[in-house]
């Protein structure tokens, strides 16, 4: 059994951050699986990366830009076509709480 790399409380916290409602059995399974993965990735600490720059992207450098022009005509019905619920031209959602 993998050393506990993440507590159940942490798993719950992460699930809250990710807005995933987990059943108790799922929580426990995830704790085990995440512990195993985190144990596995620990090997990266064997590498001294103090002086290494991180690579966030592997594409070419340069900043593509577009001209400041309106190129999209209004298409509300097409944009709303997949809405699970709508009211007029609004998307309708359940009451918003903080």
């Amino acid at each position, binding site marked *: 059994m993998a050393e506990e790399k993440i507590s159940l409380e942490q798993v719950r*916290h992460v699930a*809250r*951050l990710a*807005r995933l409602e987990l059943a108790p059995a799922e929580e426990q399974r995830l704790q085990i699986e995440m512990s195993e993965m985190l144990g596995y990735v620990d090997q990266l600490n064997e590498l001294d990366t103090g002086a290494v720059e991180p690579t*966030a*992207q592997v*594409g*070419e*450098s*340069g*900043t*593509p*830009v*577009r*001209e*400041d*022009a*309106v*190129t*999209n005509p*209004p*298409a*509300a019905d097409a*944009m*709303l076509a997949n809405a699970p619920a709508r*009211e*007029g*031209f*609004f*998307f*309708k*959602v*359940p*009451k*918003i709480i*903080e």
Partner: protein
Amino acid sequence: MNDDSYEAVIGLEVHAHMLTRSKLFCGCATDFGAPPNHNVCPVCMGMPGVLPVLNRHVVELAIRTGLAAHSKIEPHSVFARKSYFYPDLPKGYQISQYDQPLCRGGYIELPAREGEARRIRLVRIHLEEDAGKNIHAESASLVDFNRSGVPLMEIVSEPDIRSPEEAVAYLHELREMLRSLGASDGKMEEGSLRCDVNVSVRPRGATELGARTEIKNLNSFRFVEKAIVYEVNRQIEEVAAGRRIPQETHLWDPEREVTRPMRSKEFANDYRYFPEPDLPPLIVPSDLVENIRTAMPEMPAERRARYIREFELSAYEAGVLTSELEVAEYFEAMLPGLRNRKSAANWVMTEVLRAANESAKPLTEAAPKPQETGALLKMVEKSQISLNAAKSAFAAMCRSGKGAEATVAELGLTQVSDETAIAEACDRVLAAESAKLAEYRAGRDKLYGFFVGAVMKAMGGKGNPKVVNEVLRRKLAG
């Protein structure tokens, strides 16, 4: 402030909508007032598979703003994802900038009444996209994504501000700067300028910062001022009573005019910032910055300095004239052909601003065209009309919308400077007042004023005072 042993320490975070035709990362329109979800596309609605592409003009406007604020324009800045869940945030993250913003440092200079101008330092300016809008209905909420993706500049000040008045002055100056740049129209009431305030207090003379409260939901300058006053007093009370100020976010309640802590969240937001993989770093070449620098419009602070230098105005006068872009533009449009700039400045500060304030209309609608006002003042300079006559004419021009020449002619205000005519009037008056004349010549100098008044009256008020004085003196001297 009721307690002098404490000082307020205030910082402002301003979000300004940028004046572009299209959104930050897509080609949707940014105009307000469109029907809901009409200015949206798969990109700004966060559909699966979409990608952002940066609007060139946004970068230019942001560089202009950074230059005007004397910030360092970073040649290499990075976009970042700021993750949180909210219905008006379509991707579940906002594309913003985190530890590598476009501009660092800089300052906003507040107009000085006397002495040195006060500088409020900036921490940074960065780019980010706005979220959509939620409308709360009965048991549901309605979401409109028109505003989602509209470009914002976030301008963060150091906590250098020390009073509510200074906060308002800072906001005012910042807004006028943004308007002069064409970067934002700065309308707080419309939401194109939003302001969060960070307030803390500390014993006067201390250097460490106290715990701060962040106040949100302020949508007018007035509320910014009131909220700061309220919060500072509240904090002083707490601290004086020995209680700790928790680091919290408060909402301003405009009805009751108090700040209240936001409903406590179960968990603070962990935004989990990381570099945006869909956008390469924003590389700003130095020649782009230089090109923008040379094409910069004049900023309020520079304009103030120029007015003081060129027109020999006082700091106060310069401050009033640059308080709003329209006032400065009006003033300068009046100037061509006028020699006396100071009197033109005075005219704007008195007659023009009064007309605007009284009518409650914008300056451009309340006052005559500046060229016409300038023409009117030129007539005064040329002694064609008196200053008083000009005031009457101006009032009439505000009402009628007619030009200076036409109005002066209509009202018959043209001054008479013709020596012959004036001499005639003097002769008639002196002839009619021989008794007083004798008294004057006997030494009663005070009667001079009487004779001036009489001659003016005889000329229907249109006598050029200077010429009248010359001629009258000659005739009185015999």
